[in-house]
């Protein structure tokens, strides 16, 4: 009746794992940034990574589509699989991988091009459209998917950088989904947005969940609570605890999680 919840193993997600990380370590030169992290990320679910600054959550996120490859001093060991395929295998085409695992960043970063070209860029380089009308269709579909179509349909030729912050972020989401990814990684996608624009993006995340697997890094715990089904808490490079979001925010098992989410000294 009064058993200690900390002794019971956290239940895994009921869904099939889309991404599986096992024993992942990341080093930035001598710094051991991620320590033996293992996690299953279920398909068509939103997983939130939370934790204090410098805990490694963004670093780990960037392992999931090999964005860390671009940092010379960064070394990743361990095993990360997308649908059982080792994404660090020598024969993996990183550009193809990043089409399957798309990314949205903290600050909206549209290309200095038209709204249309921002979205059409990915489909063009991946050769996804055989004709202009097919490309038009992809762009429209992506903009609709990002809940931006109604606002920009009559000005697709205007520069993407002329949109408001919230619209720019949705444009970046449209750009990410235009190449039909399977997973979308979001690194603090709302931290530069006002509450209304944030609500639009959160609503969009909720809709995107029907088709994509989404991993979101956020400093806003209410946001993690609102948009995710599973939450993972990182601390000093370790994955401390991962569980259903409702459990993490009402009854976390680890003292460190408890301290962080209630705003106490850890």
């Amino acid at each position: 009746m009064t058993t200690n919840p900390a002794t019971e193993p956290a239940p895994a997600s009921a869904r099939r794992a889309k991404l599986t990380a096992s024993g992942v370590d990341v080093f930035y030169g001598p710094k051991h940034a991620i320590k033996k992290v293992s996690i299953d990320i279920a398909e068509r679910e939103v997983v939130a990574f939370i934790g204090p600054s410098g805990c490694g959550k963004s670093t780990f996120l960037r392992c999931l589509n090999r964005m860390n490859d671009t940092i010379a001093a960064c070394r990743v060991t361990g095993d990360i699989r997308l649908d059982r395929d080792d994404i660090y295998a020598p024969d993996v085409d990183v550009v193809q991988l990043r089409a399957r695992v798309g990314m949205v960043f903290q600050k909206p970063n549209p290309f200095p091009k038209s709204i249309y070209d921002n979205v059409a860029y990915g489909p063009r380089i991946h050769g996804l459209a055989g004709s202009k009308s097919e490309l038009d269709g992809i762009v429209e579909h992506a903009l609709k998917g990002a809940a931006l179509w109604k606002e920009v349909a009559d000005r697709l030729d205007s520069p993407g950088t002329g949109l408001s912050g919230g619209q720019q972020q949705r444009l970046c989401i449209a750009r990410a989904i235009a190449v039909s990814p399977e997973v979308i990684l979001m690194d603090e996608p709302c931290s530069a947005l006002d509450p209304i624009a944030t609500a639009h993006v959160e609503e969009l995340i909720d809709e995107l969940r029907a088709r994509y697997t989404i991993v979101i890094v956020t400093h806003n715990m209410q946001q993690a609570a609102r948009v995710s089904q599973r939450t993972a808490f990182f601390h000093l490079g370790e994955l401390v605890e991962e569980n259903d979001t409702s459990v993490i925010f009402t009854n976390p098992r680890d003292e460190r999680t408890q301290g962080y989410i209630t705003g106490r000294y850890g």
Partner: protein
Amino acid sequence: MASHIVKSYDEQLRKLNDTLVRMGGVVESQISAAMQALTRRDPDLALATVAGDARVDELERQVDEQVVTLLALRQPMASDLRLVVGSLRIASDLERMADYAKNVAKRSVALSQMTPVSIAATLPRMGRVAQEMVKDVLDAYVARDVDKAVAVWNRDEELDALHASLFRELVTHMMEDARNITPATHLLFIAKNLERIGDHATNVAEAIHFQVVGRMLSDARPKGGEASVAVVVPGATAGDA
């Protein structure tokens, strides 16, 4: 537990706790005063007890306000969330207990005008058990003592059994002498009030369990007697009832 980075948050939680503890103290003394008024046939104390219920209502309103403010301004999480939500439930249970105490006091005013019914020691004993349950559950709240809360939760069985036996006793009195019907009916309601106070004490125990452990007390609570559905046949002896 470590303190919050924002100190005023700790202060607000501490104030909520203080209000609830104060409310618990007032409810305890209301129940005890109502039982004294009943056993001593003291209408003045009874009327003072009835008037005293307003203080409990005021304290419940304060808890409600503090909880709403905390939810709106702090968005409490995890153990803090459970503390705040649990406090709301506990305040509402305490308020109900005080209502039952008020009803006991009201009926004791009426009873003090009537010939006493000899009901041996069962009713005062019920009063004692109910008061002990309330005291223990409040101690459990202050000490965050889950084991003590669970003990109160289990003890409700005893109160239910006393209620069932008092029910049979009073029905027997009514059958023996029709003049007993009015006072015995008041006593039946008083017994029911005490039994309900015990039920609310178990609710508080459940809220404490939730606050501390983070899960509901889910096992079915033991039952000591079903007075309200006991069958009494005129002409049968009390033992058969």
